[in-house]
């Protein structure tokens, strides 16, 4: 009966209820939306970086790792074959070798310092996905032609087109200066803005000519396949397991990094963004808490006679309190439920259609380069389903409702019968 009274009272003051409940459900929708988006972004961010930049696991020689930022060509991987053999003992995983070096890209009077990457075109395609992101021209091929691949944005900046000749100058392994002419064979457009804005790829064979590498490579990149729908956590576990096994064999000479360590900075950054969004949600729920408290308090004042009648008939303060608490809970349940339902709709869109943030922050309108926005990956973001977010929100709404109606309800229960019945 108390529940019946509570429910009917909630529905009686429709406008008041709708307002409170709406704020609450907007909070829920926000929470679930951002939760979904962030999980999606996290996953996509890692996935794309793995596909275009680093692979799941990166191996350097110990000496190279200590001085990574300087790209020291004289500290290569001493025994690539050992790594290749080791990788073969795992199922499904692939390895390729690369050499990164600092270089100056020159085209007529324009020039720019960049980090160039020498790759092995045949194995690189097994680990990375660059060959599928050629906007114009074609991917590198393994012959002796002097060809390079440029990021599309970089090429645009230089005014370079496919077929044009550019100069790449760099210090060799023996610290002498060298420069060579290359024909641009293709332009890359990937979801990773830094690749589009500043990458230069060439074959290891060409790099040999430029840098006198003596066949050495500086880093190994390992791909661990990511099954569709696999959660970040399980994938990470899988990768870390492989890292552990590799370390057993290679720890004396090599430094082995999983993507987890490589992207720690990004992950921290993302966590900060998440936090700031959840603060918004927190405020929305706070507003709805105040709303509920206010609604219940109003209900108490309006129904002071009713309270008096109930008390006169012997209802205990505890039962009066329960009546108003229930009213709050009913609102919490409605708000939480409504929020979850709306969120399912929005989530659906986010998961299956995706949200094109690129359009929102287009370079033309904001004047910012994509890489300056602090997100290392760009494009259409997809959400993820997270049932726990729904459960959490629903429970949290009820918690907020109970908490915010507790005080007015307690106030009601402490009223004196004779005061309530004064004007009866």
């Amino acid at each position, binding site marked *: *009966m*108390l529940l*019946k*009274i509570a429910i*009917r*009272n909630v529905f*009686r003051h429709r406008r008041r209820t709708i307002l409170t409940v709406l704020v609450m459900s907007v909070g829920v929708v926000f929470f679930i939306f951002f939760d979904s988006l962030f999980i999606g972004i996290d996953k996509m961010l890692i996935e794309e970086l793995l596909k275009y930049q680093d692979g799941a696991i990166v191996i350097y020689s110990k000496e190279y790792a200590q001085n990574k930022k300087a790209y020291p060509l004289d500290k290569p991987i001493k025994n690539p074959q050992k790594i290749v053999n080791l990788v073969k003992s795992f199922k499904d995983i692939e390895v390729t070798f690369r050499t990164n070096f600092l270089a100056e890209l020159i085209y007529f009077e324009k020039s720019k310092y960049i980090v160039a990457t020498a790759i092995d075109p045949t194995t690189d395609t097994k680990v990375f996905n660059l060959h599928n992101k050629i906007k114009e021209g074609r991917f590198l091929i393994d012959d002796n032609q002097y060809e390079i691949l440029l990021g599309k944005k970089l090429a645009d900046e230089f005014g370079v087109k496919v077929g044009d000749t550019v100069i790449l100058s760099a210090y060799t392994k023996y610290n002498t200066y060298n420069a060579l002419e290359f024909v641009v064979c293709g332009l890359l457009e990937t979801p990773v803005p830094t690749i589009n804005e500043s990458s230069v790829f060439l074959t290891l064979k060409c790099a040999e000519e430029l840098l006198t590498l003596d066949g050495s490579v500086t880093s190994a990149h390992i791909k661990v396949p990511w099954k569709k729908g696999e959660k970040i956590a399980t994938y990470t576990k899988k990768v870390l397991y492989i890292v552990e096994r590799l370390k057993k064999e290679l720890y004396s000479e090599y430094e082995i990094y999983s993507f987890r360590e490589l992207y720690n900075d990004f992950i921290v950054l993302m966590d900060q963004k998440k936090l700031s969004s959840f603060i918004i949600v927190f405020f929305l729920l706070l507003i709805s808490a105040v709303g509920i408290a206010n609604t219940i308090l109003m209900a108490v004042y309006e129904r002071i*006679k*009713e309270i*008096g*009648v*109930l*008390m*006169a*008939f*012997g*209802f*205990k303060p505890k*039962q009066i309190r329960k009546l108003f608490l229930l009213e709050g809970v009913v609102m919490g349940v409605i708000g939480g439920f409504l929020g979850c339902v709306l969120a399912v709709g929005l989530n659906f869109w986010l998961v299956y259609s995706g949200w094109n943030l690129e359009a929102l922050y287009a370079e033309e309108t904001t004047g910012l380069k994509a890489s300056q926005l602090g997100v290392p990956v760009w494009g259409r973001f997809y959400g993820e389903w997270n049932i726990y977010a729904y459960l959490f929100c629903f429970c949290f709404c009820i918690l907020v409702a109970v908490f915010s109606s507790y005080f007015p309800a307690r106030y009601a229960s402490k009223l004196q*019968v*004779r005061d309530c*019945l004064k004007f*009866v």
Partner: protein
Amino acid sequence: MDGKIILKNVSKVYQKGKIKVEALKNINLEIEKGEFVVIMGPSGSGKTTLLNIIGCLDIPTEGEIIYNGKTLKNLSEDELSEYRKQNISFIFQSFNLIPVLTVKENIELPLVIEKHLSLKEKEKRVLELIEKVGLSGMQDRYPYELSGGQEQRVAIARALVKKPLVVLADEPTANLDSQTAIEIIQIMREMNEKEKTTFIFSTHDPKIEKFAKRIIILKDGSIYSDMRI
């Protein structure tokens, strides 16, 4: 278990800042089970105060009330509330039905906190009372769909559903036209006779006098006259 209500030297003083109002002065009163008592008197004479004290809604400043041979002196709020729940019902001047409950649910309300009754028994009592107060066919209406007289009938049924020792009513007819007022008093009288429930109510309306079995007239907080008819 004689169902007798005894007031012994009951006084009530309201203190408002420095001003003291003596609402009741040394009242001595015995009310037998099944009496039908009307309390009359000019405005401010203490009728409401007296009913509140009999109904355990308020505590006397001095003196004591004895129900069934048991004194209610020194009972806590909770104990008084428990006492009200078991023995006392109220009918109010402005009906005070719960607006979100139907006629039937309103009548059932006092039984919500009665744990020892079966649902079947509750249902039976409610339906019987609806019949008795003449509301057959209106059990699913909401209070706003009723006239004042009908609302007060619901209130009477609600007051009787838990079979109380006494029903207290402070000016139960003040919001009704005189014809309806008489109808309501007649129903109360009928219930009083059938159920042997004690009724004590206050009124300003002299037309109602003739239905009473006992009339107590208050003046300035004291009993001016007390006569059985």
